[in-house]
């Protein structure tokens, strides 16, 4: 990339099932103000705003970015909207980073959000069409068959999903922003929770959250005096593939494998399990941890579940995944991908508080969306690339 780019400010709202204390403009402004404060800059210091959210049909407002411009200080400034379904928070951050890396802007505010309490995502994802049977029951109904396929392909025992469900919720107890705080969670509670999309139980699925995330990205010449050191972007990539083609690997999509190869290539990562200190990976359903461990090259095909079972991905493991509690603990859909990117930056800046991995120097942020057809990733580091 031409110009170095760094995260100099991060902000997120409290992630809750219902933020009825704020409107959508209030929600995005809350995250943006926190990011500006963290970066030590004001609205006037921002050159452009890049915003993303999941499909407009969720809240039923087309092109909501237009009416959100005043709340984000974007009136009279360039504003971009990004659309890549559930991965959008990640893609939005990358579009903002591209503007800095390309030398077009010095300081860009990027924001992503969802207000699920104002929306009906289950309905929006299950609209009947004449060319498909009216059976799809939200994202869980789409992903559960692929999870079953993974279980068959890898021979993973059924308790693996429950390990992830417990681990991420215990991590969330260390994150005051997280939506779910379930201090009593254990394997038995997950096993006894209702089966929603067999083989997926209620506590193996993400919640439905309101929330927003924001970051200030800056070029090397515009770092200013942020509260914490910058998180430098060492690599970034997006990939997509069609959802339906003959021979498509729906368990470990090629777009994900190629995206991570690109981003690790840029960052000089050849042995991710050793070189990456901490990862925030989009895991909305428990089984996607072992599936993405394989897709992202942290484990050989068929071996991801063994890494999860060994405790390697826990906070005290050698490759902690989702110390924030991840998507399993908070899912403001449009913001969920950006939260992964933001949490990765927080780790290398040393500002993750109770869920900080001591001495984290290099972190992966990951998002995926749609029918596993959109991928966005970045690697951020404490050292200048």
């Amino acid at each position: 990339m031409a110009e170095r780019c760094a995260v100099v400010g991060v902000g997120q709202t409290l992630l809750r099932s219902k933020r009825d204390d704020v409107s959508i403009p209030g929600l995005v402004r809350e995250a943006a103000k926190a990011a500006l404060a963290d970066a030590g800059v004001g609205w006037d210091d921002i050159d452009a705003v890049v915003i993303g959210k999941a499909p407009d049909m969720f809240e039923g407002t087309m092109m909501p970015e237009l009416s959100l411009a005043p709340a984000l200080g974007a009136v009279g400034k360039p504003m971009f909207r990004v659309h890549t379904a559930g991965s959008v928070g990640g893609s939005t951050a990358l579009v903002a980073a591209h503007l800095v890396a390309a030398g077009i802007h010095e300081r860009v505010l990027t924001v992503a959000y969802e207000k699920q309490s104002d929306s009906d995502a289950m309905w929006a994802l299950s609209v009947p069409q004449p060319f498909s049977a009216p059976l799809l029951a939200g994202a869980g109904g789409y992903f559960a068959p692929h999870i079953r396929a993974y279980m068959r392909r890898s021979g993973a025992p059924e308790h693996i999903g429950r390990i992830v469900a417990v681990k991420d919720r215990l991590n969330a107890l260390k994150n005051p922003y997280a939506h779910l705080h379930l201090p009593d969670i254990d394997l038995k509670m997950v096993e006894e929770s209702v089966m929603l999309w067999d083989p997926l139980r209620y506590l193996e699925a993400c919640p439905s959250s309101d929330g927003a995330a924001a970051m200030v990205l800056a070029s090397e010449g515009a770092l200013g005096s942020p509260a914490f050191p910058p998180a430098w972007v060492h690599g970034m990539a997006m990939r997509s593939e069609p959802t339906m083609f003959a021979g498509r690997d729906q368990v470990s999509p090629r777009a994900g494998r190629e995206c991570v190869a690109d981003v690790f290539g840029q960052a000089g990562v050849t042995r991710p399990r050793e070189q990456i200190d901490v990862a925030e990976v989009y895991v909305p359903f428990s089984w996607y941890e072992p599936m993405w461990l394989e897709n992202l090259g942290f484990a050989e095909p068929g071996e991801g579940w063994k890494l999860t079972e060994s405790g390697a991905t826990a906070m005290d493991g050698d490759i902690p995944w989702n110390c924030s509690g991840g998507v399993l603990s908070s899912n403001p859909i449009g913001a969920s991908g950006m939260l992964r990117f933001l949490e990765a930056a927080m780790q290398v800046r040393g500002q993750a508080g109770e869920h900080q991995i001591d001495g984290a120097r290099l972190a992966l942020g990951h998002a995926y969306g749609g029918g596993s057809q959109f991928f966005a990733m970045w690697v951020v580091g404490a050292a200048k690339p």
Partner: protein
Amino acid sequence: MSGAEAGTQPVTVLETPIHLDYVFTPGIAQSIFLRGLARGVFLGQRCPTCGKVYIPSRGSCPVDGVATDEVVELPDTGIVTTYCVVNVPFAGQAVEIPYTCAQVLLDGANISFMGLIQEVPADQVRMGMRVEAVWVPPDELGPSLASVKYFRPTGEPDALYESYEEYL
């Protein structure tokens, strides 16, 4: 209204259901598939380059980027590649829960589509299970997948995992 009045709460959220009717205009390829359903047959299309058969017919092969002109009639039989049992209610749900939602790979097709599995308890559905389509009565057939009531087991031996592994 003041929330301070005894027995009242401030109104913070209003639900305002809206209804939209869409006229769906399929393209040439999708029309072939939908018209097939209206006469109780599955019509797909074969890619001239890779030879794979797509159903629903799509007009092009997403892998090779070429037009798929050859129409292929497929049988009513196939296998369940993978599935889940839906036990979650949602607005506008068309089928009573719990129900088995499967990926059905028709014999001779190279891509699966979603189908309802009935006439078998959910806990007896298997990956690789042989199934056949049950159509609605002839006078109820129409240009939509609603023409297929559901799929049911044929009772034949299950397909070997290796035979459908590449479709997962």
